């Protein structure tokens, strides 16, 4: 399972990020989900496009490999879970993750990250971010038997997916026509 981020729909409004915080009442500087602006020079025209990213629940999670205390596990459905009970706060995962996903909670002195709302999913609910996105740009997709064309595995600014094989998929933003005064 993984996130599908529709960058064509995404308006960079941060509702997903705030809904995540609202759900878990997390600390201000610990951001399980973050909305990154895509550099406006990346596309043919200077549009405002965004990447809304949380944990990518990679197929080959580096966090899981390097963690000395086995705090990370990958569920059968692919969700990478971080067990704060085991964590000793060595920050190895933060060093190893190319996506800055695990974040250090200064108060608990432990790492934490998105767990794909495993609790909510198990209850049959949508993830907090998906449920909150006003334009339905976020969804959780099950890779088993999911065939839809038009996905890409990276967008500009997203680090090399070959390292950890993230399960996040993207839909590219379409670049509209612009009549500009600086041309």
């Amino acid at each position: 399972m993984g996130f599908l981020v529709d960058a064509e729909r995404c308006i960079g409004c941060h509702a997903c990020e705030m809904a995540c915080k609202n759900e878990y009442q997390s600390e201000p500087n610990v951001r399980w989900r973050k909305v990154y602006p895509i550099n406006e020079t990346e596309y043919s025209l200077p549009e405002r496009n965004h990447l809304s990213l949380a944990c990518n629940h990679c197929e080959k999670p580096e966090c899981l490999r390097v963690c000395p205390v086995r705090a990370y596990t990958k569920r059968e459905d692919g969700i990478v879970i971080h067990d704060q009970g085991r964590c000793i706060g060595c920050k190895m995962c933060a060093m190893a993750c190319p996506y800055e996903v695990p974040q250090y909670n200064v108060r608990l002195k432990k790492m934490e990250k998105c767990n794909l709302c495993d609790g909510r999913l198990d209850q049959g609910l949508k993830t907090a971010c998906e449920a909150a996105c006003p334009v339905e740009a976020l969804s959780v997709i099950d890779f088993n038997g999911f065939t839809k064309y038009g996905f890409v595995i990276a967008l500009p600014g997203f680090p090399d997916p070959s390292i950890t094989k993230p399960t996040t998929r993207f839909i590219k933003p379409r670049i509209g026509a612009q009549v500009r005064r600086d041309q």
Partner: protein
Amino acid sequence: MKQNQRYNPAEFQRKFFVYRLLQDYYSGCLWQKKDNWNEILLTLAETRYQEEIIFFDLGMRLIQKLTQEAVYDFNRLFVGPEKLLAPPYESAYRNAEGLLMQKETTDVRKFYSIVGLSVVGQNREPDDFIGLELEFLCFLLYQAVSCFQRGEERADFYLNVYFEFLNMHLGNWVSDHCEDVLRHSTSYFCKGMAMLTKGFIEREKSLLMHKEEIL
């Protein structure tokens, strides 16, 4: 064996007085006792804590005068309406983002309920307001001593809760809080009260080490 000493009424009396003074200070009603201030100072001196706790002594030297400046300073530190310079709430220190009414608050609430207490008008004022925590400690001492005097075994229970609460709550954050006061305060009075508070609570907390012998 040391029973008599543990529930020493004179010692209890001294503590009771200090707790009440601090509680009144934080709940803002000390200002109404301006006229009695010299009398209060004399009683405070009678506790003789200043001979034992260096911070207490320093604090006492600073609180000799209760000025209007101190009132403004007090409000800047603890009341508002501006951003508080030294919020008098446990969660403001132990909850990393300083948000109130969080886990820390409900933990304190659980403690109150152990002895069948709750905050007047619960959920209006955070349970972990320092004035309430001080009142709670004072109550526990009171119950411990009065149970002892009635010859009830429950005295030890109250005493244990007293130390447990000191250890898990007030004693855990009050130093940071007082440091904040000392850093931001502009009046001798508030600085003095911070030293007094810090010294007193730290001493109480240290008694935990040998609570079997002394109180």
